[in-house]
């Protein structure tokens, strides 16, 4: 069996890439995809520890995280679509009505 830290460091790297995507990109859809990357990195951590602690609770949590992520994607994409309908752009720099 591989040392556990290999999978955990990979998960941390993917999580960091997701955070980078949220901070750097200006397109609302790409930001949303980076959020999905972060969720997947956390899923990988759950499953790694579920295997190395020889229990199944981690996989159950992953099941629920995936369900919640699917519901969140549906609602978030509806919001982004409404945003595009009203503003004509998906660039978050242009949507600045609530800025000071």
């Amino acid at each position, binding site marked *: 069996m591989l040392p556990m830290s290999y*999978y955990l460091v990979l*998960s941390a790297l993917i999580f960091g890439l997701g955070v980078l995507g949220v901070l*750097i990109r200006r397109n609302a859809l790409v930001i949303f995809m980076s959020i999905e990357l972060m969720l997947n990195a956390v899923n990988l951590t759950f499953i790694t520890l579920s295997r190395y602690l*020889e229990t*199944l609770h981690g996989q159950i949590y992953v*099941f629920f995280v*995936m369900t919640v*992520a*699917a519901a969140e*994607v549906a609602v978030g994409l509806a919001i982004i679509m409404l945003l595009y309908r009203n503003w004509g752009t998906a660039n978050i720099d242009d949507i600045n009505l609530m800025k000071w």
Partner: protein
Amino acid sequence: MELFLFIVIGGITLISSFFVVFQRSPLYSALFLILTFLSMAGLYLVLGAEFVALIQVIVYAGAVMVLFLFVIMLLNLDNEKREWLTKQTKQKFVGIVIVAAMVPLIGLGISTSLLYSKSQLGAQGTYSPQMAQQVSNTASVASLLFTDYILPFEITSVLLLVAMVGVVYLARRMKKQSLPGK
């Protein structure tokens, strides 16, 4: 063997997730995200979680990404403008610094043995590799899901109903819809 599989599949995951973030067109980002999800399903298989790997392919790569692609193609977005890497460099630099400081913290924090006492790791939980060969993974997950986790299961169904109602209401066709860009 596991090391080889980990390096190949983990490398594909890392590279494609890198390209998700650093791609100009959102359509290409979505395609790389599909590749990321599929390779993560491969990683779950290496770790012995067959049920979750199947659910990952069916739900994430098969439903969530299809939804993404629908919306991307419906909105007909332009690629980000040509100066997308050179504009707002101060904000982007701060973002990179934050991530460069945070990722080693997370990576070292969850993987060093300071967090886990030696008695916890390798503890004989209820799902040892010996049992994994007798009972299939799906049956074991089901036996746990429908006994100990039945309440979150039912609440999840309510959550999906609420999400569905919300999406149908949000995305309804409105009368006198003004054109985008106005």
